[in-house]
């Protein structure tokens, strides 16, 4: 890994609800190097989006980041004053959201919305310069007829174009880190391929690191170099994409891999049995054990740590406890 850009250490994000405290993110450690593509995978509600929201400082009440550190480029985001933090948001860290249809303000032109992100962080820029730069970014993200589209409203654009606008907004300040929260989930497959291609191309050109949150392992295989698999607020497996795809260790990751449809196969599509547990009533011991086909008595009692099965490849499962001489959290 190159220079560390983002370090998340023992992050806890908790929702204080009437029914009880929900630990949406429960002690997550994560690292993203400069210019690196990192995937975060997991089922809905596993805490992957909340991890991203915590980095952005966008966790809404009754949720709160109540433990751990987030270091960005050597600065601690968690200890920063809101005003200081806003200077980084949209500027050095930007985010693309899942819903391009609703993520843009319906009563403002798309050009203005992108321009706002630019002007907010570049106070000296004249209106004309800013406009020209936005149009250039529009061209860069492949919006046809960019100068005309600048003055259009979100409802006049298709979903794919809106997501391109979102990417333009995220890229306009040349951020060091871009967080993409399921950027293609709401789009159809051909547009998905285009958007991923665009992001990859921009990422290579500008050297932006990307945190790609997805539940689509195909996207990860195509796009990312490293991977974190999350389940019920914890990282279950992490390592390079190559290593994990070659040597799947955690039963959960294995289940996810098998759940990807195979066009050649005539067999019924595999699915992981059971349901994601309610975050209010997590099982004791390993969080995955009620759904795991390999679970033993120990799994129901104790929570496993992250075991390093090969350099840089960590697995949170007792099956790999003996295999590794080295123990401990990553």
């Amino acid at each position, binding site marked *: 890994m190159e220079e560390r850009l983002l370090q998340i250490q023992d992050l806890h994000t908790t929702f204080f609800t009437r029914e009880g405290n929900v630990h949406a993110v429960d002690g997550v450690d994560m690292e993203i190097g400069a210019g690196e593509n990192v995937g975060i995978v997991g089922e809905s509600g596993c805490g992957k989006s909340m991890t991203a929201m915590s980095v952005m400082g966008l966790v809404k009440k009754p949720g709160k980041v109540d433990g751990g550190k987030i270091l960005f480029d050597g600065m601690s985001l968690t200890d920063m004053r809101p005003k200081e933090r806003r*200077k980084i948001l949209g500027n050095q860290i930007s985010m693309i959201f899942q819903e391009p249809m609703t993520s*843009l303000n*319906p009563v403002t032109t798309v050009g203005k919305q992108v321009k706002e992100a630019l002007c*907010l962080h570049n106070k000296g820029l004249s209106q004309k310069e800013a406009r020209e730069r936005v149009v250039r970014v529009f061209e860069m993200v492949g919006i046809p007829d960019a100068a005309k589209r600048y003055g259009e409203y979100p409802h006049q654009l298709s979903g794919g174009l809106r997501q391109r606008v979102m990417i333009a*907004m995220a890229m306009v300040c040349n951020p060091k880190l871009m967080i993409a929260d399921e950027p293609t989930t709401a789009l159809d497959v051909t547009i998905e391929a285009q958007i991923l291609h665009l992001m990859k191309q921009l990422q290579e050109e500008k050297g932006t690191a990307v945190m790609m949150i997805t539940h689509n392992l195909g996207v990860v295989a195509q796009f990312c170099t490293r991977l974190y698999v999350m389940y019920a607020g914890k990282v279950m497996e992490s390592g390079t994409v190559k290593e994990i795809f070659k040597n799947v260790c955690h039963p959960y990751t294995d289940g996810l891999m098998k759940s990807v449809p195979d066009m050649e196969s005539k067999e019924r599509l595999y699915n992981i049995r059971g349901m994601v547990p309610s975050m209010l009533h997590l099982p004791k011991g390993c969080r995955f054990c009620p759904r795991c086909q390999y679970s033993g008595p120990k799994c129901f009692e104790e929570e496993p740590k992250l075991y390093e099965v090969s350099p840089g490849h960590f697995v949170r499962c007792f099956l790999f406890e003996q295999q590794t001489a080295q123990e401990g959290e990553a």
Partner: protein
Amino acid sequence: MLKYITKRILVTIPVLIGVVFLIFVMLSVVPGDPLTVMMGEKVKVDVIERLTKSMHLDDPWYVQFAWYLWNALHGDFGTSYKLMRSVSSLIANAFPKTLMLAVTAAALSWVIGIPAGIISAVKKNSLVDHLFMGFALCGVSLPAFSVGMLLQNIFNGILPVSGFASPMHLILPALVLGWNAAGTIARLTRSSLLEVLEDDYIRTARAKGVAPLSMIINHALKNSLLPVITMMAIQISSLLSGAVITETLFSIPGIGRLAVDAINGRDMPLLQGTVIFTTVVIIGGNLAADILYCVADPRIRVEGGK
């Protein structure tokens, strides 16, 4: 956009004719002979005959309606039985007073209602919020006559409580009407803003690093005021068509008072005139709301243009 507005204006024409017809029919079937109302019990027969002829009273109702419509198109809504003056001049006389009251009350309600709604939304569930919403609830639920009489009692001797002689006379009635309108607006602004603040594009704005205040003003407010605009237009049109109770209570010779007098005196042409005037004002208010909405919300603009 222009096409949309033209279409909306054209639609109002049949509505207007329909309303005039309904009012005409309703008032024609009301018992009571106009001549008795006008002249009293003891009138000479030839006078009755002459008036019956000149007022087309012996024609069938549809002929009378056609005459009424024809005259109305020329700005003649008949003559008041009681006051012996043309209905249009009576309305023209009363309207400025109602207008002044309505504008003062509306301005008051916007200046108070919108900021109160915004503050309540931003400081949701705080003491300020509860205080503002309590006041708003009182404004909405207390009837005008009780608030009016209460204010008259409290401010008796401090402010003029009756009549329409100086701007000072406007204060209390405008407060009564403005409080009610402000209550509605504050509650609507609050709920609408709270809803908008949950929207995805607000999250996008926050992710851009937009400061909270600028976010509310530049991103949330325009969206959240869309329903408020509609409400304001409806309110002002109902204020303009005369606040019957408030005007009566404070003896303001406006449209509302005129209508009450017309009812009490069974002054059919005058009543007809005031009701039609009210209708026109309300239709106009709704039209204005539609047009404003169209200006504020680009999504409607495009649909209308197609």
